[in-house]
């Protein structure tokens, strides 16, 4: 077990190194220039060149890479070119909306998808099952930005129940900030629920036909107990994997939803950094996101240990 964990940790480090290198190179070879963005449309090429020099962007790529790695080893992700603050602090500022958006989205998705998925599998072929799978397909096909705009239209503009955009003004209370997350969390949660529903249904169908379920039934157990205690617990493993990966995807991939709702999260930070060519932010944020992916995958594997007695390392 200890050896396995150590191996995984070393593997994670190697993955991170590859990610860091790829991100650094891609960011630098992509066209665009942070100096030109900062100086605006009427800046002369000479001004742009001077600012590039001040930012150290005129140095050879290898020198910049070595400098970046040296910073990284010291735990320093550098300073944003545009935000006037360290990269880590910029990411930390954006962590709260992204964390709660992910949490609520996953909760909404799970609450919608798991019971329907279980029931759908149990009543396979019924009208309920057919309706559920059709709705899941619909939810999977709906772009989250479109659903977001629809929710804004009804619940923010027409009924005025929630704010349209942002994350609260100066001094906004925690509850006010959370109220800004309701609509985006539903937009993301509904879209994410489709995948989880389909996985839950498929996984339940698998286990409902297994021998141990038949055995449980032959023992005279109630259907509820058979389904929930014997079938559902075993069907949960692939569902957990999907939920974990969806969470990881949401941390980094809620970009469109964050943009539509004007949420200052990690996703929108990356997008604005890419548009501005804020290299340190792009590198730092992608590094953190990659680390989260790797960590979540690791945690899912550890969770297998808890829920599946057959899994031993």
């Amino acid at each position, binding site marked *: 077990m200890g050896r396995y964990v150590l191996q995984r940790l070393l593997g994670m480090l190697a993955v991170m190194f590859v990610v860091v290198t790829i991100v650094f190179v891609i960011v630098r070879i992509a066209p665009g220039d942070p100096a030109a963005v900062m100086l*605006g449309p*009427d800046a*002369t090429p000479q001004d742009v060149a001077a600012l590039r020099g001040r930012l150290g962007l005129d140095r050879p790529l290898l020198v910049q890479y070595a400098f970046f790695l040296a910073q990284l080893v010291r735990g320093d992700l550098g300073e944003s070119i545009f935000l006037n603050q360290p990269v880590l602090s910029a990411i930390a500022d954006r962590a709260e909306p992204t964390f709660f958006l992910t949490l609520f989205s996953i909760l909404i998705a799970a609450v919608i998808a798991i019971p329907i998925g279980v029931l759908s599998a149990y009543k396979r072929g019924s009208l309920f099952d057919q309706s559920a799978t059709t709705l899941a397909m619909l939810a999977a096909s709906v772009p989250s930005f479109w659903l977001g705009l629809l929710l804004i239209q009804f619940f923010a503009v027409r009924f005025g129940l929630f704010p349209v955009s942002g994350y609260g003004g100066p001094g906004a209370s925690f509850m006010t900030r959370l109220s800004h997350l309701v609509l985006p969390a539903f937009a993301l949660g509904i879209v994410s629920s489709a995948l989880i529903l389909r996985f839950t249904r498929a996984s339940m169908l698998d286990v409902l036909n297994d021998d141990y379920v038949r055995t449980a039934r032959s023992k005279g157990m109630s259907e509820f107990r058979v389904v929930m205690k014997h079938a559902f617990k075993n069907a949960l493993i692939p569902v957990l994997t999907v939920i974990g990966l969806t969470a990881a995807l949401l941390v980094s991939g809620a970009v469109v939803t964050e943009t539509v709702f004007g949420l200052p999260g990690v996703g929108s930070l990356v997008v604005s950094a890419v548009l501005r060519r804020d290299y340190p932010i792009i590198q730092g944020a992608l590094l953190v996101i990659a680390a989260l992916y790797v960590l979540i995958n690791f945690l899912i594997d550890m969770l297998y240990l808890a829920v599946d007695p057959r899994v031993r390392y």
Partner: protein
Amino acid sequence: MKFIGRALLTGLVALGISPVAAQTPGGVINVATVGEPPTMDPMVSTADLVGIVTQHFYETLFTFDKDWKVTPLLAATMPEITEGGKVYTIKLRRDVTFHDGSPMTADDVVASLKRWMDLASRGKQTASNIDKVEVVDPATVRITLKAPYAPLLALLAFNNSAAVIMPAKKMENPLKEPVGTGPYMLKDRKADQYIQLVRYDGYKPREGAPDGYGGARKPLLDEIRFVPVPDPNTRIEGAISGQFDYVDALPVEAYDRLKGQKATQPVVLKPFGWPVFVMNTKQGVMANVDTRMAARLSLSMEDMLAAAFGSTDFYSLDAAMYPQGYVWHTNAGTEGKYNVADAEKAKALLKKANYDGSPVRILTSRQYEFHYKMAQVAAEYLKQAGFKVDMQVVDWATLTQRRADPAVWDIYITHSPFLPEPALIGQLSESSPGWWSTPARKQAVDAFNAESDPQKRVELWANVQKVMYDETPSIKIGDFNALAAQAPKVEGVVPAPWPYFWNVSIKK
């Protein structure tokens, strides 16, 4: 049309008659902007968004009145100009303090102007004409020019790449703590979330009535919050729901949705600016003047504007570099050279130019959708005239980088508000991408810049415009209007290319 008329009327009334006397101080407004400004240092950047936000806490010696004439702001009066236009003696107001409480002195002004000449694009452009900037006494500074340079005051007044006045001790680069003299102070900035400005209680407005960007600036609101909302649809919905009190830069398609709403109303700034196709005169296909003229004659500006802005409520055909209503308006040189769409004439010119069929590389971006739509229409007209076209659609950051390299493009598309002083137009500079540098340009532009008599300058500008049409370093497509939205409870906002919120209040 009726609604546009009403919206315009609101603006015009506000321009002419100040409602300040009847206004009640207090309150907070939320202003939705297109994004996060790249910096809080108005000297460093030429981005409009930087000027819009920072003009509330940083001020310049001069500014522009409602007729776009230069008027004093931190200067006490207009300067005394002597020695044939070479020496500007500027008296400073004595009642101005910085946000840290220290008084503004001539030392601060000289240090600020030197920083501007070192750092700002427009400052560097001006520096080559300046011999020295010096303190005369604590309330007077003197600028000595190498030769008469008429755009100086406009450059000192402009809020873009601006010659703002900072305390001599707080002007590090990059700026750590913005400290200005404006009616509002920067209290907090959470990038991509909000920029919070609060009233500066020590602010002393100029005497008299508000007059465009000049006159009395009264900080009536307690707070102004600029909220970056990059998605245009979200800005529209935020206006309609009443979350934002003022929403800048809306797509014109939103006009019908905004009219008749309770929480907001459309505001049209007519005219706002001009889209332009800038030619690479240094290298490649468009280095030949006949090829450039062929491109101009091949285009239908009407079709391009219609594709870009939909309705004539939001655009107008106009060959002149400045529309009617501006002192600079003239049709000199434009006859037979605008909205011609004559493929045969263009072909004849291409033949004369020995055009070899090399593709015309049009560099454009979808960051501004109207640029892209105009490019698509232009490409078809250029093809009809015999050009080969290579459309290069990139993001704005890539465009601003690529346009600096004369080897990789032939035409790039941009736009500009109508600038108060023609000398501020980028394409007139030899160093601006496009690199227009000919004896005719030099003669016309130098004469215009050297002349200080306003009437003679108007005549000389007509000559510059004529040369621009003769040599076609760029092609103006037309005039377009800007759409914003404003809550009915907000009063005192004057439609302006760089909206400002002093003298603005909330109806009780």
